[in-house]
């Protein structure tokens, strides 16, 4: 951990931040607002809520800089504040706490049955069409927040298992389990979506063959 703390100190002066240096804080906001906003938008699927989380994150950071111990990276600390704010908002929005905090057996329990369709061969423009991108977002929204936040931190923000576990205050093995379940669930959702596209493709190809055959 020594090296990440050194890196933080190299990037930002904790001393100046704690002394209330506005320019240094503005630099911090400039550096991290992009990733914090992206995380909030993807977690909440709502731009107004994401903006609230963005603002709250930096207000809290400013007010609590003295509590930041410097052992983790500043970015880890900011991600932690933002994740907590966003998850709290989601909890409020649903007003049913159990639907947010997945029961342990749901996360740790057996895998669900899997759909098997080989959609990987679909052409890239189809895999990445505007409609498909919307579906990718929708599939992500369908994940329980406890899985979604792990997937976003690991895959979209590109953070390590270690960093993600620090941000969410989970064990590294819990992060791995949630990531695995999130990926498998998304794979299943994507298989439903692209599987239909694949069938349409195959039917189209068969019709073409029938027409070709008829012509001969």
């Amino acid at each position, binding site marked *: 951990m020594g090296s990440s703390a050194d890196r933080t100190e190299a990037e930002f002066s904790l001393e100046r931040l704690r002394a209330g240096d*506005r*320019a240094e*804080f*503005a630099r911090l*906001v*400039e550096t991290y*607002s*992009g*990733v914090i*906003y*992206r995380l909030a938008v993807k977690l909440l699927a709502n*731009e107004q809520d994401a*903006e609230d989380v*963005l*603002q709250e994150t*930096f*207000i809290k950071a*400013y007010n609590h800089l003295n509590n930041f111990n410097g052992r983790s990276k500043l970015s880890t600390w900011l991600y932690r504040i933002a994740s907590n704010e966003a998850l709290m908002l989601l909890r409020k929005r649903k007003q049913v706490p159990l639907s947010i905090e997945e029961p342990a057996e749901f996360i740790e329990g*057996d*895998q669900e*049955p*899997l*759909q*098997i*369709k*080989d*959609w*990987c061969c679909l052409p890239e423009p189809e*895999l*990445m069409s505007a409609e*498909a*991108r919307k579906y*990718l977002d929708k599939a*992500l929204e369908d994940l329980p927040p406890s899985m979604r936040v792990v*997937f976003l931190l690991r*895959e*979209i923000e590109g953070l390590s298992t270690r960093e993600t576990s620090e941000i969410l205050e989970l064990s590294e093995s819990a992060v*791995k389990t949630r*990531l*695995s379940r999130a*990926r*498998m669930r*998304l*794979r299943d959702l*994507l*298989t439903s979506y692209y599987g239909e596209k694949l069938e349409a493709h195959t039917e189209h190809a068969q019709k073409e063959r029938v027409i070709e055959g008829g012509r001969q």
Partner: protein
Amino acid sequence: MIDQETCHSLLDSLSDYVDGALGDELCAEIERHLEDCNDCRIVVDSLRKTIYLYHETTTPPVVPDDVRDRLFRRLDLEEFLQR
């Protein structure tokens, strides 16, 4: 639908497998199984593709100008707003 015992016992390891984060022994066991099991091969391929698609469609971390303006105003940092 997969329901064979071996397939099921390996499913939880596939995420680590595609990351190359498994121990040699388990990794070899999965590779042996994949040679014989078409269904599991499809699961691994589509799992890799799923992760790839999310990586490829990730947008850059940009804050829209109006959101950024309001953020800097809220934090009383307007003097540092640069375009």
